[in-house]
């Protein structure tokens, strides 16, 4: 089993990730979403909330929103299933946080005779774990729509579940080529194999990256795939009847999923915490004059910073997509998933297999 030191290490890592997700990314992303829309639409945007006259470019809006929503009434409509109505946001939020437990946010560093691996759980089936856990979020969304006794919510829940089912399949299939390339399902191992720049997923698998990003955005029901919560036709879709903190939970889940998608892209395609052309060992060597422990510590801080920076870039990409594209019709969404991305991902598996057997794609 695990010792006391292991336990402390795990708790510190969980604390870091949870604070990063729920405390930093979720509130800041609500602000980014508004501020970026303002910038892209040539407005000044979220800048009203202030504390003693300090506005800090509107960042206080996140805090103001939180305080407002905490003290809102918890509304459950007549005829709704009270148990399921309460259970649904819990079932949406738990998988969103849990999926992050297998994502490596740094490399492996040695302190004395202790090896610290910057991932909460180094599972051999990490990639499958993420897909399995994120697919559980479908339950939360559908139960929310079903239990609300509201026609808009029901339609939103139905659309969401069918859409998430469709894109889950294709999201899994787009990754197969990458797994063939790295011969592993462990996230830590996949990142470790990308210490050489030419082995980054994006170099050989950029078509898979485009397909994967499309599927991931659709899985998260973001624009242009937001038919389940289309506000102009379905009010707010499956969370029409939610208010206060339960509403916040759905939004937090969505924003955490944006971060998870970005983290998956970074880990699978963009080399995780690696800086191009600088392997971990070389980075630690650079600071070896400070002593082995300090050198490892510096490398660790750099690694985490690089990882979070890459994360921020992919999040920015997703936000830009959100404010650039119009919404697809529902039949177009299903057509794109089943008639385009699914056949294309199967063809891509064939291409990768053929390429590796003929040594056009290197074996690592």
């Amino acid at each position, binding site marked *: 089993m*695990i010792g006391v030191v292991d336990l402390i290490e*795990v*708790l510190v*890592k*969980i604390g870091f*990730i*949870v604070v990063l997700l729920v405390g930093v990314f979720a509130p800041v992303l609500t602000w980014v979403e508004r501020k970026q829309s303002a910038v892209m639409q040539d407005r000044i945007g979220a800048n009203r909330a202030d504390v003693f006259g300090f506005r800090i470019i509107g960042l206080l809006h996140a805090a103001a929103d939180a305080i407002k929503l*905490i*003290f*809102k*009434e*918890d509304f459950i*409509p*007549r005829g709704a299933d009270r148990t399921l109505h309460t259970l649904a*946001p*819990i079932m949406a*939020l*738990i998988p969103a*946080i*849990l999926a992050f*437990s*297998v994502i490596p946010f740094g490399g492996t560093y040695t302190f004395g005779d202790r090896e610290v691996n910057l991932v*909460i*759980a*180094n*599972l051999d089936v990490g*990639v*499958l774990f993420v897909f399995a856990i994120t697919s559980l979020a479908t339950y939360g969304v559908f139960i929310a729509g079903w239990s*609300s*006794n*509201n*026609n*808009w*919510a029901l339609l939103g829940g*139905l659309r969401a579940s069918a859409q998430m*089912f*469709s894109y*889950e*399949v294709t999201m*899994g*299939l787009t990754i*197969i*080529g990458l*797994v*063939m390339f790295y011969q*592993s*399902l462990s996230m830590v191992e996949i990142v470790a194999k990308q210490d050489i720049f030419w082995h980054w997923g994006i170099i050989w698998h950029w078509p898979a990256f485009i397909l994967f990003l499309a599927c991931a955005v659709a899985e998260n029901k973001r624009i242009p795939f937001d038919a389940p919560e289309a506000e102009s036709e379905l009010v707010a879709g499956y969370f029409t*009847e939610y208010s206060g*903190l339960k509403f916040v*939970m759905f939004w937090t889940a969505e924003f955490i999923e944006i971060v998870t998608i970005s983290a998956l892209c970074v880990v699978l395609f963009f080399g995780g915490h690696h800086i191009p052309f600088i392997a971990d060992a070389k980075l630690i060597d650079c600071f070896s004059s400070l002593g082995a422990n300090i050198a490892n510590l510096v490398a660790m801080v750099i690694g985490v910073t690089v990882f979070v920076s890459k994360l921020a870039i992919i999040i920015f990409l997703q936000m830009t997509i959100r404010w650039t594209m119009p919404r697809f019709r529902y*039949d177009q969404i*299903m057509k794109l998933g*089943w008639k385009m991305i*699914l*056949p294309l991902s*199967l063809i891509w598996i*064939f291409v990768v*297999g053929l390429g*590796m*057997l003929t040594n056009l794609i290197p074996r690592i």
Partner: protein
Amino acid sequence: MSQYIPVLFMLAVAGAISVGMVLASELLGPKFKFREKMEPFECGEVQASSSKQRFSIRFYLVAMMFIIFDIEAVFLFPWAVTFQALGVFGFIEMMIFILILAAGLIYIWKKGVLDWE
């Protein structure tokens, strides 16, 4: 199995956050109820029809196709991990498997299951 213990911790933390938020919304928010307010939202109208009604068969069909193709994906993952060890033989085997499923996809495509009107 010890590598799954941290996942359990993470599950506990995530569960605590979620349940804590639900409890907070229950405890901190005001309670002010009257009959008209508790109506399900339908753009200000009285609810015209119950939400417990029939819906299109296509949603079921999507769920069925999901099961078929997701199992295909699950078969592909272990094959992909050992792909380089299996070599040409494994590649041809799996391509035959994918072709059979692709035939299924073409069949449901021609049957119009994927068309939404």
